[in-house]
């Protein structure tokens, strides 16, 4: 694949204005699928959660999942959208082997929610108001696995496998209006926007919001135009960028790539592009024009959705606070500095820390565990921190053990490793592995006496007031106790004992 040439980012921004538009697909975590009673579960054996309906068999008909509609309305309300008095499903017709009916049941000109806004804070602290065009309901497609060939893509594959477990899973697609004026912060804004959407749907409880599982997927539209030009540039749509970091990188890449092309007098092709995390680059997908003809028409097998005003107001009353307001409240509550708080938000750990604090940990302790040790482990294992098998409650339990003096920091890290390895809850691990700090002075004194008796010269030095000599004794005692002692207490006892003997 030919390598794209890129223009220096700063040079690109000096010459061009960036316009972005974001389409975020949120998979709802309803028990069942959008139009049938099949279980909506991630990771089951392929083609086990399927029925005539989601397999698109002849004669099968859709029946709407009421919970999915409720959740979609909640998302619309959380984005300050208007909720349609009449929302209608439409068929989006196109052939693809992962699309059982060869049409997607979606919404077209009558989406359930429209005309919203959301305030997005970027790392610099600047706040952008992003206008939401619409949030509409649709069904997910199945999942294709291309076998054979070197790329794992359909081109060159020997054959492809289709798993329809995901076919018919409810999705809400949230589409922004074009976002102007973000300048050099456009990539950060794109990532921060998706982060906020994720936070909203997670706090609403309507999605598991795990990007690595595709619960939240972003298509990023990017176009640039020479500064001062009225007419919008030709856009590209980078599909399914599945991490916040990738969104930022992909947008930046597209800006630089397009800037280079335009500076060479080459036109941008309107197309979808694929992001390659490994190469840090996008590649050409398929041409996409505004004339792409999906032959939308109202779904005749479903009746329009007409949510009552009363119902909408009931749902509005259940909404959690908005991300921006929540952030302000939490920063004040936790007494974090701006820097500490931004670090938490940018590491995408707000919910984890909030949940850990709610489970009883002190905010600073919760912050240190998540942004420190856990982030380090996730990074070293090249995982998303959300993928680590530890719950905020378990982190809070470890913090509590440290707080009460039962664990040293070193022991606590050991317990953490055991939790991640699936050995159980912290308390159980401490008990099972005998990791608790030895707070029994008797046991400590016996060990100290033993060490002191073996090292009479050191004993002498301590007695003479050369307290730094105690270090060697403390080390030996800690070793004898297999680390399960509080070093400060050992030190106290060593000095006390030296003077008694």
């Amino acid at each position, binding site marked *: 694949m030919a390598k794209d040439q890129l223009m220096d980012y700063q040079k690109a921004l000096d010459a061009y204005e960036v316009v972005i538009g974001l389409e975020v697909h949120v998979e709802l975590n309803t028990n069942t699928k959008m139009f049938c009673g099949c279980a909506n579960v991630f990771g089951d054996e392929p083609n086990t959660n399927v029925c005539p309906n989601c397999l*698109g068999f002849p004669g*099968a*008909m859709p029946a709407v999942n009421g919970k999915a509609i409720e959740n979609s309305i909640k998302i619309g309300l959380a984005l300050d959208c208007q909720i349609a008095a009449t929302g209608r499903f439409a068929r989006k017709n196109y052939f693809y082997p992962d699309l059982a*009916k060869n049409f997607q049941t979606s919404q077209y000109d009558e989406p359930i929610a429209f005309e919203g806004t959301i305030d997005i804070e970027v790392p610099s602290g600047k706040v952008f108001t992003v206008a939401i065009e619409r949030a509409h309901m649709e069904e997910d497609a199945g999942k294709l696995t291309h076998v054979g060939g070197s790329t794992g893509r359909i081109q060159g594959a020997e054959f492809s496998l289709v798993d329809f477990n995901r076919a018919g899973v409810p999705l809400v697609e949230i589409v922004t209006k074009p976002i102007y004026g973000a300048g050099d912060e456009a990539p950060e804004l794109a990532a921060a926007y998706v982060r906020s959407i994720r936070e909203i749907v997670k706090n609403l409880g309507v999605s598991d919001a795990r990007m690595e599982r595709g619960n939240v997927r972003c298509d990023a539209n990017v176009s640039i135009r020479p500064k001062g030009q009225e007419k919008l540039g030709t856009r590209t749509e980078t599909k399914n960028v599945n991490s916040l970091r990738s969104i930022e990188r992909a947008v930046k890449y597209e800006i630089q790539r397009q800037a280079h092309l335009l500076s060479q007098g080459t036109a941008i092709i309107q197309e979808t592009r694929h992001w390659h995390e490994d190469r840090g680059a996008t590649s050409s997908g398929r041409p996409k024009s505004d004339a792409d*003809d999906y*032959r*939308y*028409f109202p779904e005749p*097998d479903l009746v329009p959705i007409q949510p009552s005003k009363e119902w909408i107001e009931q749902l509005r009353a259940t909404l959690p606070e908005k991300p921006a307001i929540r952030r302000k409240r939490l920063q004040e509550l936790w007494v974090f500095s701006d820097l500490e708080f931004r670090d938490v938000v940018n590491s995408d750990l707000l919910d984890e820390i909030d949940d850990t604090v709610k489970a009883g940990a002190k905010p600073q302790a919760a912050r240190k565990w998540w942004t420190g040790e856990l982030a380090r482990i996730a990074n070293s294992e090249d995982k998303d921190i959300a993928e680590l098998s530890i719950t905020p409650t378990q982190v809070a339990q470890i913090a509590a053990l440290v707080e009460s003096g039962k664990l040293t920091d070193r022991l606590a890290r050991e317990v953490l490793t055991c939790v991640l390895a699936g050995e159980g809850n912290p308390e159980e691990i401490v008990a099972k592995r005998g990791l608790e700090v030895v707070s029994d002075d008797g046991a400590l004194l016996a060990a100290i006496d033993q060490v002191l008796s073996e090292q009479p010269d050191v004993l002498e030095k301590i007695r003479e007031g050369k307290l730094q000599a105690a270090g060697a004794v403390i080390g030996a005692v800690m070793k004898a106790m297999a680390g399960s002692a509080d070093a400060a207490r050992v030190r106290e006892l060593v000095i006390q004992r030296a003077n008694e003997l």
Partner: protein
Amino acid sequence: MSVLNKSAHELASMLVSKEISSVELTRAQLDNIDKLNPRLNSYLTVTHELALTQARQVDELRAKGEKLSALAGVPIAVKDNLTTIGIETTAGSKILQGWVPPYNATVVEKILSHRMPILGKTNLDEFAMGSSTENSAYGPSLNPWDLARTPGGSGGGSSSAVASMQAPLALGSDTGGSIRFPAAVTGTVGVKPTYGAVSRYGLIALGSSLDQIGPVTRNVLDAAMLHDVIAGHDDMDATSLAESLGSMTEAAKNDSVKGLKVGIIKELTGEGFQAGVSERFQEALELLVAAGAEIVEVSCPSFQYAIAAYYLIQPAEASSNLARFDSVRFGLRVMPEGAATVEKVMAATREAGFGAEVKRRIILGTYALSSGYYDAYYGSAQKVRTLIQADLAKAFEKADVLVSPTAPTTAFLLGEKQEDPLAMYLNDIATIPANLAGIPGMSLPVGLASEDNLPVGAQFLAPARQDARLYKVGAVLEKLLENKWSKSMLDFAPKLEVN
């Protein structure tokens, strides 16, 4: 009189009084099918063993004194676009040859729960696209009144089976007249219920906003009893009506039309209708008047656009409904020559698996939905639909039921219109408006046309949800006619010489 000639409600009484067992009845039916079907091609699949097993079960239950429903033990034929567990379901298409569904259509569940043995699956135009069964991939069904003629379409398999005593009852589906037209040309009764009155779950969709399943029978009471079996709300069909429309069987016991206002649709009489058809139709009206009904004339000017609108909406919906036949999950798979990609396999399969009329409608529908043409075609057609509904609403202010001949002519010759799709489409002029408006319609035999001695049907229409009115007027007119003829319509039918 042979048990085969008995109507379903008579058979039901004989079963209750144990004059006959369901096994005896079912076996007699199957024997007659084995005799006639090789010639008439009414059935695509005959389910001998299944039918007899079901018959045996119902006999056992009856012997035990279990409470059974009215039609329990009466066998029935099912149109082959309704899914049936364990029975091949083809919709008359090569693309589904050999396909055995793992689920039953809701109506099939219903007839099974009422313990009606299934005799087999009846022929139809491919995916119900046609008015003659000539578009069936498995050859046309023949009209028992004249084997050179069509039994109508798309449900010609069901109509020819019921008219030739190969089944006392059958299920049909009606998108633009596919129950009513075959009924008219075979001297049988066919009813298209109000849209949503009967669940469409498991009906292989043609035009989803038009399709409706209904009874095909030899008389009005039988139709009413079958209607009561299949109607009712179904959670599996989002468009199915929440409320019950009452008992059709009760309505069919009506014996008076005194004061009933019958509206003649001006646009559906006179010019363009075969003289013998108009003649029998007029006589039927005179009988109603003599019995105390009042005739009024109504006008539905938008009907002139009905066929044009129908042939945009129905192909548009069909083009989308038939997209799923792509060889990936079920049905025919044809490998193209050379390197196969999924697109090429889909294309080769659809090229080989669909017949000419299906392709014609997919192309038509795809075009009508295309961006830039949508407003002019599909959009305008939907507006016509609204106009037709408005015309009908106005007409029903003046009349309780509307009436017209079901079709402009009696049964046409096989091959007569096959090369002229437009002529074939025009055949549905009288039946299509009911589908576009979602209202119920019934075709009832009113005699034989003098020119050709072939059956003529009259169509009654009622407002949405007023299906009972059709049975009320139908039952009375049927009785008046039978009194006049001193026999029933099918007694006029020629004895079939087949071997």
